[in-house]
């Protein structure tokens, strides 16, 4: 496992997170977009907690 591989893996995981957010907004459509919109703020809290090393 080299540095380039780790960067690829982490970037891929980040892309999946972005895709999940997009997908949930797409599925909930016009009548429920705000549900996903508020959910996006959860990413802020998650990262804030995870970066407490």
């Amino acid at each position, binding site marked *: *496992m080299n*540095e380039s591989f*780790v960067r690829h*893996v*982490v970037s891929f*995981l*980040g892309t*999946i*997170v972005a895709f*999940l*957010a997009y*997908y*949930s*907004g797409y*599925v*909930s459509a016009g009548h*429920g977009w705000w*549900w*996903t919109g508020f*959910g996006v703020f*959860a*990413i802020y809290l*998650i*990262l804030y907690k*995870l*970066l407490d*090393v």
Partner: protein
Amino acid sequence: MLDIFLSFFLTQSFFAVLSQVIALGGWIVLAYGLLFAGLALTGAYKAGKETSKWEWVLLAIDVPQMNVQTPKAVEQLFAHIFSIWEPSSIGTVFRRGYARQSYSFEIISIGGYIQFLIRVRTIYRDVVEAAVYAQYPQAEITEVEDYVGTIPDTYPNDTHNIWAAEYLLTKPSAYPIRMYKEFEHNISKDTVLKDPMGTLLESFTRIGPGEQVWFQMIIEPIAEKHWKEDAIKEIKNLIGEKTPSKKNFFDYIFDNPLTKELAHGTNEMLSQLTGSEGGVGSGESSDTGKDSPNNLLYLTPGQKKLVEAMEEKISKVGFNTKIRLVYSATHDIYTPSRAVNSFTGAMNQYNVPFSNTILPKYMTSVQYLFADQRKDYRRRVILSGYKKRDIDIGKKPFVFNTEELATVWHFPMSHVATPLLQKAQLKTAEPPIGLPVEYTRPQSEIDEDIASGVRDAAQRPRYKTDSGEVEYTNDSGGVRFG
């Protein structure tokens, strides 16, 4: 309600349910998992890269025959070496790579000959040497080759067998073990401290040629927040102190001055209607006991002593600690009971039944369910942890403060007459002040001398003392002061 819940799952296809669960917030849970995995992977990779550059040195410590220092000196040594602790930060974890610093304090007996050892990162060698010499100026510190390669890694093995164990605390780290101060014996005229190390070392002399016993105590300096908060909670629990719980959303709705006043009014109305005791003022009388912050007054003398000991423990710096013991021998002379039982007995000295005890809780003695395979697996795990000096292999480490570390690992006092313990044989002294010291001149000066034709003088070594430069004209001792 149940019908709606069931129809959601049972009347739709799997993918429709999955899609809706993700849209309804399931994606946040997945995002948490993925971000956690990504950051953990980055941190672990960077830490591995950083530690692969680390170089280690194994130092053999011989203390003088007439060691009059008590374990207090070693306690100060541990306090001294705490200085290598480095706090983690986003930069160190995700950019440079962060791993906790560690030392390994060891006592080994090879065929009955005992040696004290310290393994440390090469860059921190001076820290350890300074800490040892500060307390034991007559000690001899020598760099030695690592001994762990003398026994094989894999078991079952054709030639060797081992007994290995990790010694763990039976209660949370907040509870202290018996400290060295409690081994003081004031009635005795000759030896005030009944050194527990005597028993431990005696167990190491029981073995003969072909046998080895290795004792290891790996320690890592850790931040206060990683253990003292838990210890304080444990103390508060013991003395019955109520910790105010954090207010949640419902507390703000149901526990505010308005709702309290409403409840109080309703209570008063009910008491007047029914004639029961519960009117104004009755609430205050029942609350009198709640004002007491804790139950410290009602503790028994033993409980008070325990709380004091716990508070004393957290008044000193702490180290993550892992204790391992390995006995190895060739098959024909393999008798672990010779050293293991007496060593465990020696560790029992530090036990306080109502506080904490050290016991071999993860060991190669397994009685049931694939016992032989599990024994060999544990042999490999514990031995690999020992050889790599890895604190994380095996069971979770516990926390010892400097006093506990010094109790378990210290140099024996002079009255401990262990025959085969390696001790410093030479008497050392400070060199006279002002001895000439060789130094290197700047290259520009040497070049100037060579250019001016005085090549011999340019290449001759130069010496200086506190009073100036000294020039040796020849090897027979001719001296000319510069």
